[in-house]
């Protein structure tokens, strides 16, 4: 069975400071990992994904995420937070043995608040 844990319900950070949103995963095989963002009254928007290769993945809006196989983690990061980054962030996983038609498994979400 696949699962994703986002240990923090809420992350607060001052504007201009670096931010980290944590995610750990559990899959039987090797994972594909994804981050999505949900702004108020909007659907989920894809940010980035880890497929293979470089453990540091760069995505939209200046976000990046680091895949760590030994720690089974895929933390989302940004060097300098903006107030406009305030949103709900979801980590998701899919076992590589699945297909593009296998639904992603999502974490519970972490609400990021960036304070001016």
């Amino acid at each position: 069975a696949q699962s994703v844990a986002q240990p923090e319900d809420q992350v607060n950070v001052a504007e201009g400071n670096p931010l980290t949103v944590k995610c750990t995963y559990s899959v039987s095989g090797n994972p594909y990992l994804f981050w999505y963002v949900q702004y108020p009254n909007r659907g989920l928007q894809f940010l980035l994904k880890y497929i293979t290769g470089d453990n540091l993945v760069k995505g939209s809006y200046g976000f990046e995420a680091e895949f760590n196989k030994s720690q089974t983690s895929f933390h989302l990061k940004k060097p300098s937070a903006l107030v406009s980054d305030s949103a709900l962030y979801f980590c998701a996983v899919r076992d590589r043995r699945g297909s593009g038609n296998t639904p992603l498994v999502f974490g519970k979400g972490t609400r990021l608040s960036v304070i001016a």
Partner: protein
Amino acid sequence: SAVISQKPSRDICQRGTSLTIQCQVDSQVTMMFWYRQQPGQSLTLIATANQGSEATYESGFVIDKFPISRPNLTFSTLTVSNMSPEDSSIYLCSVGTSGTSSYNEQFFGPGTRLTVL
């Protein structure tokens, strides 16, 4: 990528009634997924809809309560039947890409915000 629209965007309904949510995609897709996002919660998969076959429901969800149609490769509907206040949620339509690669992301519609009184 795929562009997905949902109708209605929001609705307020009375207990005991039913609401049908429509999902339209701008390209042909094999699988469509319906999720529920209860207030302050994560996404819970309701069912997977493959064109031309019965939808596959996740544990805790049944066809009588959440009937799904998938008449073609670009459209699906989810009906929330005999609603109660516990059904108040955001309902999200999602699609995979037409390819079968498991590294492909899913795309989401804007969601339908349902409030049941």
